[in-house]
């Protein structure tokens, strides 16, 4: 699928796990800059909702496995870059305690054409959801609970094992 019809650019991939918030506009600007081969940028932002599985959410705390997390995200991005003709990829995932409306995760993929960027961005999110070592705990005024993994996320990931698009 990697059919570069233009001089090969250095492909950049950035993976970050951080407590701080991120600025999507700034990341998009950094991906655009000086790359006139880029025709499409697809981005995904995940946000904390105030309801999940019919329970209200006051805080969301993200635990992770520090030595493994960036390595696992990088492996997902590498797979996407092998599978589609994409250029830059940026993944930023926050950890620590967040509240509704806060940003959790950002995935940005650039490419010459839109289909590769859409597919790769969704692929990275589906794999991140099922492979990267993060765990969410939600609290509200009454209780706290670990978020359960969803079979719909497993199904979303499984799609990519049978298709090459």
């Amino acid at each position, binding site marked *: 699928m990697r059919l570069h019809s233009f001089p090969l650019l250095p492909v950049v991939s950035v993976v970050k796990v951080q407590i701080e918030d991120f600025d999507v506009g700034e990341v998009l600007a950094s991906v655009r800059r000086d790359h006139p081969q880029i025709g499409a940028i697809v981005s995904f932002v995940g946000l904390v909702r105030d309801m999940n599985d019919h329970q209200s959410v006051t805080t969301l705390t993200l635990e992770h496995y520090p030595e493994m997390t960036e390595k*696992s995200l990088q492996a997902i991005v590498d797979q996407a870059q092998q599978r589609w003709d994409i250029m830059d990829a940026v993944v930023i995932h926050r950890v620590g305690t967040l509240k509704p409306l806060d940003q959790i*995760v950002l995935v940005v993929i650039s490419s010459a054409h839109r289909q590769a960027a859409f597919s790769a961005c969704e692929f990275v999110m589906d794999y991140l959801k099922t492979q990267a*070592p993060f*765990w969410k705990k939600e609290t509200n005024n009454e209780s706290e609970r670990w*978020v359960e*993994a969803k079979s719909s996320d497993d199904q979303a990931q499984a799609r990519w094992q049978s298709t090459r698009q």
Partner: protein
Amino acid sequence: MQIKVLYFARIKEAVNYSSEDVDLPETVETITALKHWLAQRGEVWANLFSGKLVVRAAINHTLVDDLATFESGDEVAFFPPVTGG
């Protein structure tokens, strides 16, 4: 052999600590065998590791299935299915 074992999320809360160095009999060299070995430590451990719960494992920071083998000095981690993103 000696390995390091890490626990995360609800498993860490249940066992009440996040890591330990364990000295294993020679026969324990797969994730499955290690789970059985841990399950014999008592009720809390049996509840976690005897197969009722889905417990994922990583060896040296790579996700593995239960047939994977580890070596002396490796870092093995146990955790629930992940829920990031």
